[in-house]
């Protein structure tokens, strides 16, 4: 009974479940730069680079999937390293603007190199190689690495830079170096998500990596809360599942979707997974008990 039921469920919702996984990776990729105090919104572009790099390799050259995935991580990481040098000198809203512009550049390059990327028509017939355990493994490894990193010297350096860049510099922390590390690692994770997504949906086109996607990624992280690793994952789960759960509302579902997001932001400004508030609530419960 359970097995048969699960079979149907998986037939219908496998794509949705795997989208939760890739979106969680995307949310974690931007969490990494946010944790280092940088508002960088180039992650949609890094996702695009990862998706195109890996899809071109499997599609045109028949490379094995793991190698294509690795290339899908390496290509955006390299790109991040190159553009990181000049742009990471910027901070706050100026960095946001520069990374936003970079996103547009990537989109327009994809549109105009139509011999390689298919231009606006995108890449079709990408082999569906992504399996559930690829996504699960990618997410588990990413979470484990980030969790370990938070508790290491690197994580403490990120924290210090986020709180006060100048003070961190005066304490002897290599601010530029750590910022670059966060930026490059974030790009690699976004690229991995892009590569997994491309091999799940048969098709990629430049239109899906535009400003909308960049904002969506940022929303997932902020909505979930950036105080911990759980936050971005929770945000990704909610933003991916909400439109599906509201499908019964038919024409009004996007209205409700928006409404729920507005309410969450209004009443939980620090995100859903706000560790301090959760601890406070737990405290109240314990005192009452």
């Amino acid at each position, binding site marked *: 009974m359970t097995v048969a039921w699960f079979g149907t469920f998986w037939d219908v919702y496998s*794509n949705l479940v795997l989208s939760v996984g890739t979106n969680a990776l995307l949310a974690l990729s931007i969490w990494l730069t946010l944790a280092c105090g940088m508002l960088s919104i180039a992650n949609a572009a890094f996702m695009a680079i990862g998706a195109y790099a890996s899809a071109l390799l499997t599609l045109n050259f028949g490379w094995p999937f793991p190698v294509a995935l690795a290339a899908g991580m390496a290509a955006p990481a390299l790109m991040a390293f190159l553009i990181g040098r000049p742009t990471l000198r910027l901070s706050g809203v100026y960095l946001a603007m520069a990374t936003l512009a970079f996103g547009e550049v990537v989109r327009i390059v994809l549109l105009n190199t139509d011999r390689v990327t298919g231009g606006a028509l995108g890449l079709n017939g990408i082999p569906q190689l992504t399996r559930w355990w690829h996504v699960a493994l990618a997410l588990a490894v990413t979470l484990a690495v980030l969790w370990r990193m938070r508790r290491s010297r690197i994580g403490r350096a990120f924290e210090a830079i986020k709180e006060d860049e100048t003070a961190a510099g005066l304490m002897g922390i290599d601010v530029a170096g750590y910022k670059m590390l966060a930026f490059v690692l974030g790009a690699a994770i976004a690229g991995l998500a892009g590569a997994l997504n491309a091999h799940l949906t048969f098709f990629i086109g430049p239109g899906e990596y535009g400003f909308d996607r960049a904002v969506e990624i940022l929303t997932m992280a902020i909505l979930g809360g950036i105080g911990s690793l759980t936050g971005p994952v929770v945000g990704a789960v909610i933003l991916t599942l909400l439109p599906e759960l509201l499908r019964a509302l038919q024409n009004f579902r996007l209205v409700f979707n928006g409404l729920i997001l507005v309410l969450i932001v209004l009443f939980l400004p620090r995100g859903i997974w706000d560790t301090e508030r959760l601890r406070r609530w737990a405290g109240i419960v314990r005192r009452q008990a």
Partner: protein
Amino acid sequence: MKRNTLAHSLFALISATALAATAHAADIKIGVAEALSGGAAQYGISIRHGFELAADEINAAGGVNGNKLQLIIEDDQGKKEEAINVFKKLIFQDQVLMVFGPTLSNSAQAADPIAQAAKTVAFGTSNTADGITSIGDYVFRNSVTEADVLPETLRVAVKHAHIRKVAVMYGNDDVFTKSGYDNFVKALEHAKIPVTTTETFAKGDVDFKAQLTKIKATHPDAIVLSALLAEGAPIMVQARQLGITVPFIGGNGMNSVKVFDLAKGASDGLYVGSPWSASNESPENVKFIKAFEAKFKTQPDQFAAQSYDGMHIMVQALKTIKLGGNLAAERSALRDALPSVKWTGATGAFQFHRATDKAGKPAGYDAQQTAIVSVTKDGKFVIEK
């Protein structure tokens, strides 16, 4: 066990609409996956109306061999992930016989492989991009591709306007306009018409004078324009302002009555080809337009006409197969019956022809239909032969 109950209630919640709509056992469930919200909603809603009109007519006339059609309509938002989710829901959960849609070619590239793998017919009424039907032998469409329409448009325009050389202008960041451009280039090469210059623009541009000035200097006999209306209409207006009087030869995106509003006073001399025209006075088309206007209080467009015909074409095949018994057998029987359907509807005489996949092996089925070419004159489309 507890997890099972929880999941069951979740499952029930999600499928509440579908279940609520289930009437009686003899209904034939037909999935409709179209973009009803988002950027492509104007097309999706039109398409939905076409399906509803056709299904109502068929059910009012007693259904298919006594069985009523039941449409299960889902919104794919014009996004590829959503299109996949909706296809999976319709095929595996709602257990539909076949699926119409999705609206956009990009969504079809992502969702049609799902239907192919599940051996369920996916029938597109609005996908015009190359290669959709190469996905597999369960993929059908009655939308005439630009590869078929544009050579015909060009031929008629050349015949009437004495065209020897053309300038080309297209939007290079949009899947419709880019694919239109690719097909225009092929058609121009085939007709041996030299191109004086090729200019591009992007979605959201408002000033095209730089490109048009350059085009004017090359003295073409016509301008081939692959654009959506939002950019195409101002291009026509600005061309006339610059004193360019030569005709325009437009792609699919320019084929809309809205051009008369958006390019007021400058809308004359635009050649467009389409499988459907409001000015076509065949009895089937007159009946369709009258019924559509009576039901929805608005004028139909090409997309509504194609989905209306698509439903009728599918029903012709449905009439010939035996229903009842197992769904997988019904699905493949429908697939086997579809290719031989011939139908004359709002868009004229129609039949399928087999497409090939990348390796040249037979795959899905494309439309075989003659395009109707019209030219704009005094705020109306006039059919040219």
